[in-house]
């Protein structure tokens, strides 16, 4: 049943292209319906399967010559992310209600992207996973290059090439693993059981991990993220930050760490006090957190603030993965969900509510407009989203970051302190952006926009409410997701990781 999330999205994309020319509003409704159906399928499955164990959805031979199967399966981790995809898909469509130019194509690319993302999260066969992972690249490119704004062609090409380089690295690692195992299968669980030599794992792990981490925005491979987010149209930035970056993090956890657990072990020597790839990536993640936050602090462009905040928050996820303890990794998965929702919300406010109306993202210009008087809903939404993003209790971000911090405290006490610094800067940049964008500074002439801004529309309100409600729901009752994530982490698939270097 869950497999239909993928099929429906692809069918929806095809159906959109077959709609008659010029059918703008029917295209929107059609796309929205497709996304809603996809999400309701996920929700039904979620309500039926509360245990989080790995369940096969579809399994048919695909290319018997190489033992490739069309194998879809879901456990708690993938289910969490599939839920996130469904929510972001719906709200993304709500927030792109204003797309008038080439509407059909926009939503067709959009649904194609959504379908491929579902596919990645549900694939249990490495080849299949890689296929979906690569399909993501093309619609992403066109969404940005056609409907984007600032330097869109540059941003789109940069994003496409970064993604492709990342997936090329993953491909090399996967082919090598496949060949070394000599197995006639590309099934994740069977390859994960193969005892690759520690030497091989030491080489393959960083290759595949970095390959995925490029898409997760790991410092110093993050530079595609701010430019890509800024260039993208609202729905695409929501998808990019909300879901696509999670693909990278998901790949790190599901493929790199599961396949090559020994790659995380100590090298046996130290370079600059770093004794393993785990140390290296943990350090890069922390640099990402602090660097992203500091850069967000000095941006003049509103959207760049959010773009760099994504880099910072994604650092938390990678750091959580590198703690290698249960609380840290569960926190990372929760953070994937939480950041997906919050980044989506923030980009919606900036891109749709503010930029689409004022046509500027310059914080100084916005400041003079005193927006909280003109579009109070946007201001309120941003304040709430900002508080959630800072990690205020009651929102999803708080639980997730707390769990990661506890995990880090156990694994790297010193780094936990640095992360604390990052959190403080996080408060500051959100505060600064909020102040400058919505509340006029004293001593500045108020310059109300001319002509007056159109009011916030109903689809935007619905979208914002859905996202805020989700964040609060998870923040108040995180067990809802943790109940399925934790058993998934205890499943046999992660045996190698638990036995190897789990703490």
């Amino acid at each position, binding site marked *: 049943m869950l497999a239909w999330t993928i099929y429906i999205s692809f069918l929806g994309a095809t159906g959109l292209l077959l709609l008659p020319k010029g059918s703008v509003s029917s295209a929107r409704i059609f796309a929205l319906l497709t996304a809603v159906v996809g999400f309701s399928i996920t929700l039904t499955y979620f309500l039926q399967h509360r245990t989080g164990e790995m369940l096969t959805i579809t399994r048919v031979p695909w290319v018997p010559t190489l033992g490739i199967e069309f194998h879809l399966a879901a456990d708690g981790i993938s289910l969490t992310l599939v839920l996130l995809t469904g929510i972001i898909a719906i709200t993304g469509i709500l927030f792109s209600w204003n797309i008038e130019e080439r509407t059909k194509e926009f939503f067709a690319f959009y649904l194609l992207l959504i379908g491929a993302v579902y596919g990645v999260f549900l694939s249990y066969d490495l080849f299949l996973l890689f296929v979906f992972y690569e399909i993501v690249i*093309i619609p992403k490119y066109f969404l940005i290059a056609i409907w984007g704004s600032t330097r869109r062609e540059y941003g789109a*090409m940069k994003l496409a090439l970064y993604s492709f380089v990342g997936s090329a690295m993953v491909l090399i690692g996967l082919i*090598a693993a496949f*060949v070394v195992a000599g197995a006639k299968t590309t099934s994740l669980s069977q390859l994960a059981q193969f005892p690759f030599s520690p030497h091989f794992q030491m080489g393959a792990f960083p290759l595949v991990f970095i390959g995925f981490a490029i898409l997760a925005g790991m410092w110093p491979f993050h530079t595609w993220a701010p430019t890509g987010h800024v260039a993208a149209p609202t729905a695409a930035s929501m998808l990019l930050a909300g879901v696509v970056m999670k693909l990278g993090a998901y790949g790190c956890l599901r493929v790199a760490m599961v396949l090559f657990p020994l790659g995380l072990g100590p090298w046996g020597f130290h370079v600059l006090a770093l004794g393993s790839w785990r140390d290296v990536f943990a350090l890069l993640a922390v640099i990402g957190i602090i660097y992203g936050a500091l850069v967000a602090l000095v941006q003049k462009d509103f959207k760049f603030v959010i773009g760099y905040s994504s880099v910072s928050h994604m650092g938390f996820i990678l750091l959580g993965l590198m703690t290698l303890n249960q609380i840290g990794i569960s926190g990372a998965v929760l953070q994937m969900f939480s950041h997906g929702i919050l980044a989506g919300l923030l980009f919606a406010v900036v891109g749709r509510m503010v930029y689409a109306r004022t046509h500027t993202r310059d914080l100084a210009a916005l400041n003079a407009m005193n927006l909280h008087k003109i579009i109070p809903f946007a201001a309120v939404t941003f304040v709430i989203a900002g508080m959630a993003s800072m990690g205020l209790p009651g929102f999803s971000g708080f639980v997730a970051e707390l769990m990661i911090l506890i995990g880090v405290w156990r694994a790297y006490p010193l780094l936990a302190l640095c992360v604390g610094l990052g959190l403080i800067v996080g408060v500051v940049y959100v505060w600064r952006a909020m102040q400058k964008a919505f509340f006029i500074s004293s001593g500045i002439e108020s310059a109300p926009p001319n002509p007056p801004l159109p009011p916030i529309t109903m689809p935007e309100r619905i979208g914002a409410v859905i996202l805020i409600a989700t964040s609060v729901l998870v923040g108040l009752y995180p067990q809802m997701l943790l109940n399925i994530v934790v058993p998934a982490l205890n499943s046999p698939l992660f045996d190698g990781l638990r036995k190897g270097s789990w703490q």
Partner: protein
Amino acid sequence: MIAINNAQLLRLAWPEIIVVATALIVMAADFLFLHRFSTHVRFSLAAGLGVLGCAGAIIRILFASEIANIFDGVLISNPLTHLVQIAVLVLTIFTLLLSVDSAFTQHVGEFVLLLLVATTGMMFLAGTQDLLVIFISLELLSLSLYILVAFNKSSAQSWEAALKYFLFGGMSAAFLLFGFSLLYGLSNSTSLPLIAAAIHGPALNPLLVIAIVTTAIGFGFKIAAAPFHFWAPDVYQVAPAPSAAFIASGSKVASFFLFFQVMALGFAGAEGTAVLPNLVRGWVPVLALMATVSMLLGNLVAIRQSSLRRLLAYSAIAHAGYMLLAIVVHTQQSLDALLYYVVTYALATLGAFAVIAVVEQQKGDDQLSNFNGLCRQSPVLSFCLAVFILSLAGIPPLAGFFAKFYLFVTVLNATPGSMGLLWLVVLAIAMSAVSLYYYLRVLKRVYVTPPAVGVAAIRTPLLSQVILIVLAAAVLLLGCAPQLLLRWIEAAVRVSGL
């Protein structure tokens, strides 16, 4: 000496005979009856006849095939040769259909005749393991192709390209013949397996080294591998679209199959190895070097092209580099991968040329700027172009992706237990990342850049539209279900025991 069984010889050559007979009939019909009709009608009828002939040959191969090997490989008939011959015939059929809507020449009969004669050459190439027959059929193919390139008599550039092609081709044929003569001198035989048996030895004979290099040069020219690629960009750019498509598709399939056969069969025992850092002399390092240069040069130079045909030419050089990897490892599995790759590549390239032909007819030439905003002018055309280009770039779920994946797996599989050829695979994958850049630039023009003001919608002739959709569907289908073709290739390769 075995008694010559003429009846058997004739029976085995039936498919080729059908094609040649069709060629003659087409020309006679064109001279006798068709010349008073308009070019379009003549092309339709001539191409229709040609298609019938090719289809007849395919049916003959499919339903009356036998396994035979006459005179140590002078004429061979087994499932593998049938497979390659059918692939070539199918590609010829597409080329013929593609030429129906073109208007570059009045000499319809000759054009179809040459196309079919070239096809005959390729069919013989696929069905032989004898140096003499190889050389003769290669010349039959090449000479036809030279003329096909020069067919647009109104274009001086077309002549220039054809002359360039001819001169380079003649030179490379000389190299090839020189290599073959050395081989004959070394082994006293023209049959590839017998040659391999004769040259087998612990150390490489210096003459054999020369034979290896000259043979590699000769074939390197045919497959447009760097540094023997100089003819390709010019020919691709100015040859009439059907000729260029034919050179880029059908002739590639036959040449690569032959190249594999000559190297793997004829030079068995003189392989050497390309495993770094301990290279061993032989033909493998030569080809590995050729593959490396082709991948680097093709992909890097393609970035700078402003004409789609030239871009495809350089991408063809790059693809030749990838495909050479299959010959470098020359295992049974890599032959599977090579055939899958070259067939899917040929389909995608053919499709791309079909799109170019349509666009050129409406807009004059194939400059990339002519593709600006194509998706507003013709959604079907641009969708098909996107499918072909993305397949060439190796994006799933299109055929080009699985072809690359399978190829790289077989390359690594060839040295079990060691990652000796990993450097070639890493280079190939890195270079395909580069290639995405220039392929995306083409698609950017099609989908992102707005069209020039005042350009009318593009009218795609019905037949071209059908061909395009069929080709795009084939590329998509083979990508989603590779087993359809792969199963067939595998069975054929196993039976033939190459």
